[in-house]
């Protein structure tokens, strides 16, 4: 009798544990996404990108006096935090906004870590390949050099007092005029997150 009660309890416990799992589903990252103190989460990227885009477009830094569209090179946004933040999330949103503004074009022929798309150089190496109609091979001296470079860095400062941990991420983004080396736009964005754990440490 006692044996069957124990078995029943174990089965019920197992069923309850299985019931706690949640099947994979799509979520709205703004309201349902995870927020962790140590990392830059999806909603943080969205927030910083939106603020950076607004600041960049409002500054008018992309407008050239000659009316031509500015050519922007996407340089590195260095991650100097301890977390594995994918800074391309920010630069991709910024380049999308620059293109949508109608004031700038981005180049993929040069980048902070070499060309983003090596095809611009590769297709010019076909000039000695008799397999290709030479009239259709892209000519040298036609690629447009960038006017501006977008770069930045992310740093963080972490503080702990008792059971409370606070982490602030500082995003610094700069647009440099490559003719003069001067920054034509720069801005800082901060995100601070705080967490207090219970006495058991979770």
């Amino acid at each position, binding site marked *: 009798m006692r044996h069957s009660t124990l078995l029943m309890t174990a089965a019920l416990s197992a069923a309850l544990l299985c019931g706690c799992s949640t099947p994979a589903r799509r979520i709205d990252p*703004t*309201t*349902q*996404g995870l*927020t962790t103190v140590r990392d830059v989460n999806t*909603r943080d990227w*969205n*927030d910083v*990108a*939106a*603020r950076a*885009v*607004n600041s960049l*477009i*409002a*500054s*008018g830094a*992309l*407008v050239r006096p000659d009316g031509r569209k500015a050519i922007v090179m996407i340089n590195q946004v260095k991650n100097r935090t301890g977390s594995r933040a994918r800074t391309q999330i920010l630069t991709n*949103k*910024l380049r*999308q*906004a620059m293109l*949508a*503004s*109608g*004031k700038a074009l981005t180049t993929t022929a040069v980048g902070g870590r070499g060309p983003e798309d090596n095809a611009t150089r590769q297709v010019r190496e076909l000039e000695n390949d008799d397999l290709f109609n030479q009239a259709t091979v892209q000519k040298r001296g036609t690629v447009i050099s960038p006017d501006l470079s977008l770069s930045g860095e992310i740093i963080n400062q972490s503080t702990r007092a008792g059971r409370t941990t606070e982490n602030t991420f500082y995003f610094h983004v700069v647009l440099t005029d490559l003719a003069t080396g001067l920054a034509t736009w720069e801005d800082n964005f901060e995100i601070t997150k705080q967490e207090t754990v219970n006495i058991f440490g979770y």
Partner: protein
Amino acid sequence: MKRHFLTTAAALLLALGAVGCQDTVNTVENRDPAMTPDSVDTRAFSTDSFCRDRLALISMRRSTTPGGVMMVQAQIRSERYGFWSELWSGMTGTNPYHVLYRFDWLDGSGMAVSTAANAWQPLIFAPGEVKFIQGVAPNARCRDFVLSVREDPSAR
């Protein structure tokens, strides 16, 4: 009778203490502003009576950036001040007040224009605090906008 009086007094003191712990924001500004803002005549559609009563839209202004794109600014004040509001927000743990906002942009044909900046953005209000939120159109073709505000469910 005496016990009843003491209980009521203690409850009142506790409530006063809870309210006294709230940090409300006080503001002062010049009586005759020198600015000449281009105000936007707004029309609101509210589905959340709590959010509607807790935030007041003081002004909505429009200007143009050096690049020729429209920029709008909403001046919003948290109405969650006063004895009962502060007592309730203190008890429910909703002080400060967390909301999300988003600007959507429409071109001359009324079509929504996609932008990396139209994500929900967080905003935190202390009781009585006035905040200015700005939205910049993604390009010069944008003519109109919609500002959406909602309570942040992840902050409850």
